[in-house]
């Protein structure tokens, strides 16, 4: 029976009762000091939203109490033995080191985007030149080239504002993180997508910072705060130093 692998925990872990993909219970497969959190996968060929959410949900439940190294979606092994051989044994050195390094840590993700209308309002309020250009466009709406120029100036102004807002947020939250992994913003109004590696005993302090930010941020800034998550952004890529040739 194929098994879906969620992540790696110490072999001493105790799992709560959890159901994973396709409703089968999450359980541990152990080898030495390491264990993989897995569940049986009757149908290994299909995947959908529920499967993605199950992977995330199991990991977020485990990380409430345990250090867990998350697998990417989806690592599916042919059997429990394959899990032991290809993941736990072959990756033993690296996985043990990662569990030690990430002990007592969780990931929290801070996101932000602009409300377009509010951002434009702030931009125009601050920039007399932009307002003047807008007035010229209003006076002569047939001037296609002026409209382009206005739109481009707005685009550039918004981009600069996004960058400033992103840095402002990073400055506020970075002091509470052990590491920061900032993703490339994607999208017209996307300001920030940052993964923070946070010590469990500093979570409350970060919560407080986010609370203050959410109250004091200007209306143009929409914030998102997700977690605790397993440290997706901080485990690197490979289970083992060398690729696994099983």
């Amino acid at each position: 029976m194929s098994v879906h692998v969620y992540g790696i925990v110490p072999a001493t872990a105790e799992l709560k009762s959890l159901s994973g993909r396709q409703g089968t219970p999450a359980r541990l497969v152990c080898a030495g000091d390491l264990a993989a959190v897995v569940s049986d996968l009757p149908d290994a060929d299909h995947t959908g939203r529920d499967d993605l959410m199950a992977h995330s949900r199991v990991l977020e439940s485990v990380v409430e109490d345990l250090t867990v190294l998350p697998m990417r979606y989806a690592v599916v092994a042919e059997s429990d033995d394959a899990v032991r051989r290809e993941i736990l044994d072959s990756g033993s050195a690296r996985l043990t080191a990662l569990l030690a390094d990430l002990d007592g840590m969780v990931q929290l993700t801070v996101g932000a985007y602009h409300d377009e209308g509010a951002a434009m309002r702030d931009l125009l309020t601050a920039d007399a030149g932009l307002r003047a250009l807008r007035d010229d466009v209003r006076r002569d709406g047939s001037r296609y080239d002026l409209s382009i120029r206005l739109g481009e100036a707005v685009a550039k102004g918004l981009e600069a504002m996004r960058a400033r807002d992103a840095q402002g947020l990073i400055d506020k939250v970075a002091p509470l993180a052990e590491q920061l992994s900032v993703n490339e913003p994607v999208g017209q109004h996307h300001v920030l997508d940052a993964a923070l590696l946070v010590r469990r005993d500093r979570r409350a302090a970060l919560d407080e910072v986010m609370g203050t930010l959410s109250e004091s941020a200007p209306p143009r800034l929409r914030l998102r705060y997700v977690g605790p998550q397993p440290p997706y952004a901080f485990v690197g890529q490979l289970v083992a130093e060398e690729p696994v040739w099983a």
Partner: protein
Amino acid sequence: MTVAQMPTNRYLERPSASSLADVVNTILDKGLVIDAYVRVSLVGIELLTIDARIVIASVDTYLRFAEAVNRLDLTETETHGIPELMQDLSSGGAKGKVSGAIEGAKDKVSEMVSGGDDEDDDDEDSGRRSSQSGSSRSRSSRARKTASSRSRS
């Protein structure tokens, strides 16, 4: 997102669990894999995500922005046109030419979906891009190809 729908920030004192949007942002291209040569996606399943976020700087975007700021009602709406300031804003291009336009997304959605099995491309960003033709909307849906993988025996 549209202007009319924006709520104020609710008080973010506690973090929330991952939503689907968060999930596709993490588990599909972050986390451990067995080896770099086994691509996660093998069997193609189309998965529509919400909130595709696409960066496009183009004439259509500029026109839309121009229209949007035109409609904005600021407290100070009237200024006296100041030609000198307009020069600062000039991109230096000739009339009718748009300088600095960036063609953002290059991949069409269909190409991305059909190309999902290629093993040559381990680019983590390849799944995020999709195209949007001359759109005046800031949101569109994208199809994402994902699947389960098997570890080799």
